[in-house]
């Protein structure tokens, strides 16, 4: 059973804001969904051994990419060619 306080904690972990009056409904719906997920307790089998899949990498050689101008055009707040973000406490 997830409590309202758990919901508030999860929201904080995910940096998702939820308002006080949304919390009760979120909690009820969350619990209903987690009840449904309980069927996974009956899944049989173990984690598979490494299948030997290989990550596809390319050589670390610079290639043409988007220009600084193109990238900065989408950013909300920029300064001297940098993107501005909120302050880190």
């Amino acid at each position, binding site marked *: 059973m*997830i409590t309202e306080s758990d*919901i508030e904690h*999860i*929201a*904080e*972990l*995910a*940096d*998702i*804001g*939820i*308002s006080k009056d*949304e919390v009760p409904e*979120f909690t009820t*719906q*969350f619990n*209903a*969904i987690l009840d*449904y*997920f309980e*069927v*996974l*307790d*009956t*899944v*049989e*089998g*173990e*984690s*598979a051994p490494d299948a030997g899949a290989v*990550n*596809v990498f*390319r050589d670390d050689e610079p290639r043409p990419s*988007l220009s600084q101008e*193109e*990238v900065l*055009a*989408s*950013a*909300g*707040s920029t300064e001297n060619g940098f*993107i*501005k*973000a*909120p*302050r*880190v*406490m």
Partner: protein
Amino acid sequence: MAGTLEFSPDDRYNAFITTCSTAPFTDGALAGTAVAVKDNISTKGIQTTCGSKILEGYVPPYDAYVVELLRQAGAAIVGKTNMDEFGMGTTTETSAFGPTKNPVDPERVPGGSSGGSAAAVAAGLVPMALGTDTGGSIRCPAAFCGIAGLKPTYGRVSRYGLIAYANSLEQIGPMARTVEDVSRLMSVIARYDPRDSTMLDRPYDHRPSAEIKGLRVGIPEEYFGEGVDPRVGERVRDAIGVLEGLGAETVPVSIPGMRHALAAYYVICTSEASSNLARFDGVRYGPAVDTRKSWHEAYQDLRQEMFGTEVRRRIMLGTFALSAGYAGRYYAKAQIARRNIREDFERAFRDADVIAGPTMPTVAFRLGEKSDPLSMYLSDILTVPANLAGIPAISVPCGKVDGLPVGLQLMGRQFEDERVVDAAYAYEQEVRA
């Protein structure tokens, strides 16, 4: 051959978020063909929102590979279609830009999340559209609107430029009124792209064939059981009968892992979404975050205002399913369930070449009818297995119930998209005759 298409549609169904009043085109396999693109696929110079306020006004500086391929084929990209926010939904009702209406009955949903693409095609506004399918989001709206839609084998169509929701599950795919056009569009977009490291080099270039003598069609009991409207089941059985009339044989198969499929799907997709949507912070794109606030406060406020309820719910479910103390119970179990389902299909495909069943358990519901999230999730039960297993799956119209379209779903082995298309084509050609 080159020119400009003028496009000012009567968009009474709200199929489009953005339309291009003039769309250039060039020579090629799709020369001059109007194609609509789902709004989670990056189009250079054309607003791309994923149906969300958090990307309102975002204009990508680059094209997705599939869009590059469309342009190279001479297509006219006429607009970006409406969708459930970030692909999270089965009805296009979670869009921040209003729901799309089903052209067959405007009081009903078109399905989702590619509801805008399906409606645009069904309403005759465009002959072809691109959709994306994570848990059924091409096939569901295709079924509900009475058109054809293919979810390709995972790894056959580049996801470069597709704004990710659940990257181990989703594929971009073609939607059109006919299977032949679905195949034509697939032939344009299914090309290897080294920028998508989850792709294999298996291009699709196929003209559908209606020759299906000897094709073994598997009928999974789980697709006709409880929860499936018996009238939908009947239409689909009739359609399978048509395939038999063309020389196919039917064989019973079973996918026992179905009982875990929906839970596994929702754990995996929400987990991936919780990570993929962390990037939406108002810093690099979308409506700007308030940089005067502190980090967490700024992000929480922005994401509360700009993400809809369903998106926030799924991010939270995913965060929870991956969190310390719970990941073993949810995420790990879901991955084992996923492997079991893939193995169930592999076993079934020893006895059958394609597997047939309904695409959706019901016909289109009314707008606003499903307000409870869990009951909405349950509608995905017949579509999610193909995403979990990474296999190709097509929906083709096969009759109606209460005047509303029913979809026949055909699934195939990995990389046998051609065979799945042929079976759908054979059925479609026979009933049109």
